[in-house]
């Protein structure tokens, strides 16, 4: 009986690892192929059978991507926008979420659901009205304009995420601060925020990624080459008639670096933040 159980456990474990391995290959395969292609000359991109480890690796694509057409400037533009959006979203959504989580006021639920409803609208449906609004607010063709729109579009989801997290924090801690003569600002900055690092890290990652990767809006509103962000620059390496894929992938690989850095720095909070928010919502 126990031998049977042991055998079954081993079998389950093997199946589990095989499934995990398969999942890992499916997830990492395209990324690894991108890395591989970035190191190949154009002539070798479509070799058959495809080679994962290039026979004649070259750094030419990286040099060409980085030095051509202000790529470094576009990288810097994207980084500035994404960092500012991240800061704005973390500050504003944490305050909004705290208000929604802890205070009672008339119309609270209506406002909250109204905000959630905004998440349900497909982005392409809104692009023309959003463009007209942005033009009227003089936000077209400006990196600052991108910050406003990206930050606004990140508000609903991140407030929703943080509200769930804040509601799960014990009220007793806040009452203790009140008894000691502290106010709500003290509670917010000294109790709520330090206890919510995992959730705030999650919001930071989401908002950074959201603006770092965004393409359609930036393409639509930016009309000057020097104000472009990275996704547009990468798309512009693809031509109407032919694309230099090594160059596209080398550029994409450069673009992935800040995402990896942010993710590695905040990783230990990330999973915890996601599940905490979800369970306590």
């Amino acid at each position, binding site marked *: 009986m126990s031998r049977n159980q042991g055998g079954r456990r081993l079998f389950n474990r093997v199946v589990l690892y095989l499934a995990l391995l398969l999942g890992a290959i499916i997830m990492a395969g395209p990324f690894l192929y991108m890395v591989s292609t970035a190191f190949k000359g154009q002539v070798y991109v479509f070799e058959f059978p495809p080679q994962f480890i290039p026979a004649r690796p070259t750094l030419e694509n990286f040099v060409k991507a980085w030095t051509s057409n202000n790529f470094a400037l576009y990288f810097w533009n994207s980084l500035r926008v994404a960092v500012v959006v991240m800061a704005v979203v973390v500050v504003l959504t944490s305050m909004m979420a705290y208000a929604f989580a802890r205070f009672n006021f008339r119309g609270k639920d209506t406002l909250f659901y109204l905000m959630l409803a905004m998440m349900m609208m497909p982005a392409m449906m809104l692009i023309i009205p959003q463009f007209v609004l942005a033009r009227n607010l003089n936000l077209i063709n400006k990196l600052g304009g991108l910050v406003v729109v990206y930050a606004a579009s990140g508000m609903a989801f991140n407030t929703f995420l943080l509200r769930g997290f804040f509601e799960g924090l014990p009220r007793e801690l806040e009452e203790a601060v009140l008894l000691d003569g502290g106010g709500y*600002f003290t509670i917010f900055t000294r109790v709520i925020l330090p206890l919510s690092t995992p959730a705030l890290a999650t919001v930071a990652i989401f908002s950074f990624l959201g603006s770092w990767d965004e393409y359609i809006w930036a*393409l639509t509103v930016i009309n000057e080459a020097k104000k472009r962000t990275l996704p547009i620059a990468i798309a512009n390496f693809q031509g*109407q008639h032919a694309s230099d894929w090594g160059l596209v992938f080398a550029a994409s690989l450069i673009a992935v670096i800040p995402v990896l850095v942010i993710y590695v720095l905040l990783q230990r909070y990330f999973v915890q933040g996601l599940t905490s928010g979800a369970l306590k919502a």
Partner: protein
Amino acid sequence: MKLGKFMALVVIVSLVLTIVSACVAPTPQVVEKVVTQVVEKEKQVQVVVTPTAAPKAPVTLTFWHAYNEVSPENETLTKVLIPAFEAANPGIKVESLAVPYDQFRQKLLTSMAGGVAPDLIRSDIIWVPELADIGALAMLDEVMPDFEQYKAAVFPGPLSTNFYNGHYYGLPLDTNTRVWFWNKEMYETAGIAEPPQTMDDVAAQCAKVKALGEDKYVFADGGTYGWAVLPWIWSFGGSITDPEITKATGYLNGPDSVAAYEFLLKMFKDGCLSPSILGGGVSAGDGYATDLYANYLDGPWMYPIFASQFPDKQLHAILMPAGKGGHISVVGGEDIVMMQQSQHKEEALKFLAFTQSEEYQLKMAETGQMPVLNKLIDSDYMKSHPYYGTFLEQLNTAKARTPHPAWTKMEEYLTNAGQAILREEMPVQEALDKATAEIDALLAK
């Protein structure tokens, strides 16, 4: 709780402000008008006081195109031609913007809705009727004083793509067509003696090419859209609509168009037409360069691309193989059009005229953009050119895609029909009947 109420108030006020800002009806055009009037009055006063005209404020023109950012075309445009224009026209600056082709229409239409369209665009010839139909383009034959002179200087075929509803909305910028590229190295390996002259010759290559390997194909293309399938339909003698563009019945679903699709389907089922025609896979040009595809159709821009990306591979061009309808290919190219919303029409027309100059046309010709000026056809440049000859010959019989504002929608039906046929979701006749009915409904509007 006071702070609580305060924070709640902040939330409410922020949300209300957001909603209100979205609803406020702004009046930017009114402001622009007021500014224009003020400037005009200042000018009048100055004319009275002194006969010297006031120096005009520098004007910045915006010009959108879909050249690849790192392409020779873009290099020539931004580093040679625009600086030359600016030097000859002090006070006018041209800002060119490369917009990816696939998102070009979306960006343009959104910008137009917002009232901030560019001054000039290099428009795909198939967009001109649609843009003219919605009133987005200025009528060049009305606003350009010497339009007749420019009109007479260009090839009539490319010029006709600017004509819609009795007016010309642009001038041709470059022209092109697709010719048949045959892969000499693969032919030699497969033992194929001659490039194909007829559709039967194409079909006869199947067994020889498949003998080279399962991953080798006689022909490849990137989809079932008009640019890809029209040379087949026309060369088989078929068409999309009647010449007056009033109906598709009897044309798209007629026996000749059906024969074209039957031919492609048989090639596909025999493994001789690359699956890339259903999307994805190795693109036709890349597959030709790496000896996966024995033939494909493409334009003159591939020569500079091959020179930089596949310097060891040669392109060999002939006319589209003939069927019942002859050696017929599809006319491509771009027009330059001025947007109705342009605030600087006078200056924009100067740049537009510059694009019609010999200097501009010859410089762009070096990057694979075929010129449109009549006088260049007999020039030494064209006569001694290594590859434009085949394209000029193909252009003699090439046809333009249906010049109709609803072409984009018609092409969608055509693409879907091609996909359904090759995926064997529908028999050829049934799929074309369906597309024909859909196109007829469009034309009836």
